[in-house]
């Protein structure tokens, strides 16, 4: 499965954007994705890939490439503790 293509497709669908507007290098800020949009994209990814994305991993997803990298590692069942460590001390996704 091409994770990158699927991620871009899901982000495009959830943000109501054209797929051609999104690349691996796009940041969430550039795409106008705010914290609530981010939570919505996480939900769509979890539904699509049938997995749970831990909050600590989710906090590092601020660009399309970060989403693809994190998701690939979760899918491969790799250790994500370094991502968890990176996120430590940061606040949870900003929805009040």
């Amino acid at each position, binding site marked *: 499965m091409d994770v990158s293509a699927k991620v871009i497709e899901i982000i495009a669908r959830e*943000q109501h954007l054209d797929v051609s507007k999104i690349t691996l290098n796009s940041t969430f800020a550039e795409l106008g994705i705010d914290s*609530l949009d981010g939570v*919505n994209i*996480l*939900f769509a990814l979890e*539904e699509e890939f049938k997995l749970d994305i831990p909050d600590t991993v989710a906090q590092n997803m601020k660009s399309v490439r970060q989403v693809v990298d994190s998701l690939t590692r979760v899918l491969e069942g790799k250790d994500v503790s370094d991502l968890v460590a990176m996120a430590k001390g940061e606040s949870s996704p900003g929805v009040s």
Partner: protein
Amino acid sequence: MRRVIITGIGVFASSGKNAKSFFTSLLEGRSAVRRIQQFDPAQLSVQIAAEIPDYNPLDYFPAKRLDLLDRFSQYALLASKEALDSSGIQLRDEERPRFGVVTGTGMGGATTFDSGYYNLYAKHATRVHPFTIPKIMHNAATSQVCMEFGAEGPALTTATACSSAGHAIGEAFHLIKYDIADMMLAGGTEAPITFGMLRSWESVRVLATGNGDPSKACRPFSADREGLVMGEGAAMILLEELEHAKQRGARIYGELSGFGLSSDASHITQPSIDGPARAVRMALAEAKVSPEDVDYINAHGTGTRVNDFTETQVIKEVFKDHARKVAISSTKSMHGHVMGATGAVELAATILAVDQGVIPPTANYTTPDPECDLDYVPNQARETPLRVAISNSFAFGGLNAVLLVRRFE
């Protein structure tokens, strides 16, 4: 004392998707009740409602915006837009902190709740959509209206069942009268036509089944009444402080000059006579009018036996001899019971009646009831100059709201 006047009206309801078509439909005595089309009602014993016909949200909102709007917020936004457009107001940025919003809703985002729980319990979904909470919360409509139209002043939501919108408009009225705000968009919104909600109301045994012709199902004050019919929609009223409106040469629909509110404190569903009567008297007292000055009562008039009998007794109690002279009608016979929005939908009808000097009828009235023996303006609209009118909302839970409108002089 600051005076509060009505300078804008917006209605998005089963009887019409704007104030003009809504009121025209009422004057023609046309019922909007029909077989439910939002979902297949085949399993229900009650299969009718007053739905907004042919409603497609994408006709009104971009897809991205809709992601965060339950139907009840959509209706509030559409009614608000008409209220503001009809007022001709051009807000200046420095006025925004004195411009606020109050909406009433009984159920909030009922359709979002219903589909979310269906996925969770019936389809065994392991997650619920993250927009569920921001869509269902009762204040979502108020917040969306504030965001859309830049209202930065006092804003809140009332949830008092069938009196929600009456309380919302009354609160907004007092916020202007007591110098907390200069302009308020106030009203109510409800989108309760879901399988779960219909089932719940069905079991209370107050719904008309409308076997045969759905448009004849709701027959308030008629001896052959069968119960209430659920409706949906929104109405929003723009209230403005008199001098503020005068300065910009606003078109004035009428003056809101009395608000009465009370609690029965007796029973969770059965209305009392004392509670509503106190609310009516309070509205008259605030407006400094006597019972004889009231020409028209837009009744709560649900079409249940208990309501019709109690409301008739309330009117006799407060108005004494004048009870037999005052014109009373229930427009719910046509637009259905719009629950938390109903007080706003009915106030819109009341304001337009005073403004145009014509009373919308009680539709489907066929048979006089010896216990309900007042003038319910049966079936035919009546042209007559109106000085003062009141709109009654008596809710489940015994929380009452009465609004008084007078012709502006």
